[in-house]
């Protein structure tokens, strides 16, 4: 590891891998830092090792990850794994924590590809042992070939929830119930978007095949549930909700050992914010987006963004955005000329357009329900400091006008996760209570250290 590279890429998911491999091929001195032990990010996690399993139950898309990982590993890019970015500033100085020691790396260009996280889904009892995210279930499947025992319930909505249901069924795991919490888009909203999504027919067919497989397996599916609760004493014992049966509203309770929650993914904008990138609220995705040009250049000097950390685009589009970023950086660093850049970008942009055409439909079909973004007063919002929605509302009514004030008054977002699991809920509550827009409300101020670091580790710098 050197103390300076021409290009530093953060995140070894599809966007970071593609950007690094292409940049190296174009003669740029590039290093890729990533928190995991193996490249692939969350979507292609453990892709180089679990390729055999992929054929059986992970699905064909997962194999693409192995090709991408191989492309990266065979390139001249420097790979720094098991490395957490704990510091980042607008002068392109990056502090990473590897093996109990901190290092600083400077760069001429920074490309952030720090990916997405699952949208927090606060509901009563979501802190109980036995409740996890669907993404967590998938990570256990990909990285350790582990599946839940006992009665399994999946709840929420979105492509990932369908995918993991399909993967579990392929692997012979029984699913007790799927509780769909999405309000469901009306036909009027869906049809035009469906037409625009036709270039991405492969996505549509894939989604349809998941839905059919779930139907064929006879898994009970409850729709448009907005009152889901997890119940239990020391761990989850059941889920409860009300639903309409015939013309009557009935209470349903299902004994549960494992509940996996998912209501879509949101951009992990913490590093872009720390680097000084401007962001905007995307009402359609119900999430933040980093303002960027077609090459991924952000408003912050010399800082590029690619993939889901700049707004949700999916794995394939993220990969293509990474390649575009590498092209522009190679142009800026005089490795290729304008004509070479534009020629190489043509095919990539065309392909990117196709992969992005599915997004408006997905955003409409799987829009998250208000019920799990504006939870009832007695629902825990901040899992670290154990702050409930009622306390946050009270702080807002006392005059807190933004997330940072709520944090100061309630400790919400002050724990080790630094607001990753409560930030979006707090902002939504402030907007709802005050009538302000999300853009006016903003987000928690991001400050280093982004990851807990001991004084000993800091001293070893």
């Amino acid at each position, binding site marked *: 590891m050197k103390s300076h590279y021409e290009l530093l890429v953060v995140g070894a998911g599809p966007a970071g891998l593609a950007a690094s491999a292409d940049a190296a091929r174009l003669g740029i001195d590039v290093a890729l830092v990533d*928190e995991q*032990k193996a490249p692939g990010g*969350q979507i292609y996690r453990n892709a180089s090792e679990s390729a055999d*399993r992929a054929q059986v139950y992970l699905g064909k898309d997962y194999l693409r990850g192995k090709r991408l990982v191989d492309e990266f590993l065979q390139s001249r890019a420097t790979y720094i794994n098991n490395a*957490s970015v704990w510091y980042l500033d607008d002068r392109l100085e990056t502090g990473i924590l590897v093996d109990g020691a901190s290092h600083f790396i400077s760069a001429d260009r920074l490309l952030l590809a720090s990916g997405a*996280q*699952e949208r927090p889904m606060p509901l009563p009892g979501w*802190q109980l*042992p*036995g*409740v*996890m*995210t669907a*993404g*967590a279930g998938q*990570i*256990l*499947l990909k*990285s*350790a*070939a*582990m*599946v*839940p*025992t*006992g009665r399994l319930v999946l709840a929420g909505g979105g492509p990932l929830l369908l995918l993991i249901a399909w993967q579990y069924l392929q*692997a012979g795991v029984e699913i007790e119930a799927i509780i769909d919490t999405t309000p469901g888009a009306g036909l009027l909203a869906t049809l035009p978007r469906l037409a625009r999504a036709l270039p991405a027919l492969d996505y549509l067919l894939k989604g349809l095949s998941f839905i059919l497989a779930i139907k064929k397996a006879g898994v009970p599916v409850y729709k448009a549930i907005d009152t889901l609760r997890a119940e239990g004493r*020391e*761990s989850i014992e059941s889920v409860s909700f009300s639903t309409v049966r015939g013309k009557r509203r009935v209470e349903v309770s299902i004994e549960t*050992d*494992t509940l996996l929650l998912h209501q879509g993914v949101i951009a992990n904008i913490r590093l872009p914010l720390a680097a000084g990138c401007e962001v905007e609220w995307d009402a359609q995705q119900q999430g933040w987006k980093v303002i960027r040009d077609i090459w991924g250049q952000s408003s912050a000097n010399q800082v590029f963004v690619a993939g889901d950390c700049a707004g949700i685009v999916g794995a394939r589009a993220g990969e293509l955005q990474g390649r575009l970023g590498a092209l522009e950086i190679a142009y800026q660093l005089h490795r290729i000329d304008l004509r070479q850049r534009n020629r190489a970008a043509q095919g990539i942009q065309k392909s990117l357009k196709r992969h992005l055409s599915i997004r408006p439909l997905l955003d409409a079909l799987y829009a998250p329900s208000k019920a799990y973004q504006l939870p009832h007063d007695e629902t825990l919002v901040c*899992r*670290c*400091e*154990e702050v409930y929605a009622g306390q946050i509302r009270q702080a807002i009514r006392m005059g807190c006008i933004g997330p940072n004030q709520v944090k100061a008054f309630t400790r919400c977002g002050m*724990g*080790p*996760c630094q607001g*990753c*699991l409560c930030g979006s809920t707090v902002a939504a509550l402030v907007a709802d209570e005050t009538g302000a827009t999300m853009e006016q409300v903003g987000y928690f101020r991001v400050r280093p250290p982004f990851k*807990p670091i001991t004084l000993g580790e800091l001293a070893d710098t």
Partner: protein
Amino acid sequence: MFRLLEDSATDTVTVRIEDREYDVPAGISVAAAVLLCAVNKLRNTPVSGSPRLPYCMMGICFDCLVSIDGVPNRQACQVEVAQNMTIEYQQGAAELQQRE
């Protein structure tokens, strides 16, 4: 809890969780090992003392904080199991320990 999908003969390592020893597949995270061994918690929270187990498995939620080989507040989902590793529950807030 969780089980292994394949009983392929992968290498195993022995870890100690509280007072018991377990053989778990090499290469998996401490958080995965804990779920495999069906222990009922990793820690009790500092604020209310309620039990917690891993939640996100990707390093963002910090619900899997645990003491590993005597070092408190480690993220179990980010640390790989190792032979003779000692994993101890974390009760409430971690305490400063004097180094010798």
